[in-house]
């Protein structure tokens, strides 16, 4: 497991990370999200000690990595495997040689290395590509090799820094599935740094939102999407744009609060309140704990007392709010899009 406490990083007078703390247990995937510029990459580089934190501690298996000498750090950091953005494979080494690379820095015998490389390549489904060079592999295949390389030294913590950036949705989901399998089988603690909310929703157990160097919101993914309408919650479970104006008083925003919401609520509530209900927009998904999470916008076709409506929904595990809630897509935007948006607003 890894425990980060009061991690602070300053460059001169600029504070990039300001007292960040979080802990990830073995067998847990913890996502850190935030817009670009929030300090995500600096956090990643501090966790694997590529940058020395200004203050704070990083405990991996009870050992504080920030207090070690250079020499001690060299061996201790092997407890953290890193999966880099766009895989960052060495172009002149084959897939197998890339996976073997971290083992070459240790006194691991050749035969042992060969066996381990085969195991790892097999685990990520890339054994048939062992002798291919990165330029002969697709982005998803390269990232599988990157995952295998990150696991080469049997780390207890796996740091994945934007592991799916630049991959198409199908490849992304196959990489995430693999990540979840590795978490369950190898019981590694995974720190997943990403700006993609789909990624968080489909694979993370917990999520922390980084904003201007601080973690301002956190919780298990299920908890966050079911218990609040915070910006993170709305970004995680975004409501698609609805067709009707959302300011009418007959419009209600619904949020699933319990994992076991009866999917037939629409009919049963319509019957109970004796009204037709129009569904204007909605997103209902099964999340990691196996239960449902959802956000739906509905409109009642006959005037009703607000208290009555709230009670009807509450009895079915659904939280209802009259009127509209702003959409939160800021968190998820790509850096380039943000740049463009900034340029546009400046112009």
């Amino acid at each position, binding site marked *: 497991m890894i425990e980060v406490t009061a991690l602070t990083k300053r460059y001169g007078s600029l504070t990039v990370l300001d007292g960040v703390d979080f802990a990830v247990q073995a067998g847990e995937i913890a996502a850190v999200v935030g817009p670009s510029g929030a300090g995500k990459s600096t956090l990643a580089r501090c966790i694997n000690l590529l940058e020395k934190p200004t203050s704070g501690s990083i405990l991996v298996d009870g050992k504080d990595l920030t207090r070690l000498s250079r020499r001690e750090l*060299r061996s201790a*950091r*092997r407890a953290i495997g*890193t999966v880099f953005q766009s895989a*960052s494979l060495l172009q*002149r080494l084959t897939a197998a040689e890339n996976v073997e*690379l*971290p083992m070459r*820095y240790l006194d691991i015998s050749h035969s042992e290395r060969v066996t381990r490389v085969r195991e790892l390549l097999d685990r990520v489904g890339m054994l048939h590509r062992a002798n291919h060079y990165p330029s*002969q592999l697709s982005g998803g295949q390269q990232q599988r090799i990157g995952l295998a390389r990150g696991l080469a030294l049997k780390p207890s913590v796996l740091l994945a820094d934007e592991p799916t950036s630049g991959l198409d949705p199908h490849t992304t989901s196959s990489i995430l599935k693999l990540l979840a399998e590795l978490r369950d089988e190898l019981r590694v603690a995974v720190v997943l740094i990403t700006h993609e909310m789909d990624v968080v929703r489909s694979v993370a157990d917990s999520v922390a939102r980084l904003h201007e160097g601080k973690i301002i919101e956190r919780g298990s993914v299920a908890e966050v999407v079911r218990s609040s309408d915070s910006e993170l919650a709305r970004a995680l479970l975004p409501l698609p744009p609805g067709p009707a104006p959302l300011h009418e008083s007959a419009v209600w925003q619904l949020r699933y609060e319990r994992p076991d919401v009866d999917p037939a609520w629409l009919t049963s509530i319509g019957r109970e309140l004796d009204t037709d209900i129009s569904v204007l927009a909605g997103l209902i998904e099964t999340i990691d704990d196996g239960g449902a999470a959802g956000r739906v916008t509905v409109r009642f076709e006959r005037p009703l007392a607000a208290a009555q409506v709230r009670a009807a929904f509450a009895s079915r595990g659904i939280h209802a709010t009259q009127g509209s809630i702003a959409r939160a897509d800021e968190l998820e935007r790509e850096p380039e899009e943000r740049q463009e948006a900034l340029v546009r607003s400046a112009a």
Partner: protein
Amino acid sequence: MILATATPWSGVSSLLLPALGQTAAMVGIVMGIVVALGLPLGLLIFNTSPRGLTPHTTVHASISWIANLGRSLPFLVLMATVIPFTQLVVNTTIGIKAAIIPMSLAGIPFFARLVENAVREIPRTRLDVGIASGASVLQVIRTIQLTEALPGIVAGLSLNIIAMIEYSAIAGAIGAGGLGYLAVNYGYEQFDSHIMISCIVVLVLIVQIVQFGGDRIVRSLTH
């Protein structure tokens, strides 16, 4: 009227072949020294730079300055300037031995810059891969920088060999022998057109072969 007495074509090879051998020896020895010293120097220049593995402003500025010094003088001037040093090291100022010193002094910084450029092309995250896996600085240099930059370094090597062939011809002026000496003394001074033409043809061929061979190797190393 100037009477040109050209060496008969049949006699050209007896002059040309030894000269070719001398050029090859000079360039060969110089390249050995250039690689042995220029490669570490290039790695040092890059790795002490802000983007390197062990940034060090003062060291970087000093060695960078020295490397530029070696490249700023025209070769003929450099050769004359370092005569006292040449005398000190090889105890003579003429011949192949004497040519090797200024050629190396010109070649080392040239190659160092080519190595630095080749290594600079490697994206930073690929170096991070090594560091995050617990590699030492020397291990990162050996397994990542040199491995990834090899095609670039080989391309630099052919560039450097060609430059050294050119310098070896200039060194003919201090009696270093070789093709350049032959072309100047027989072809130019004695109007021996057969020798002149032969030297030109051989030099052009060598440069083409080095460049072609170098490009082939670079291609085979690039994946």
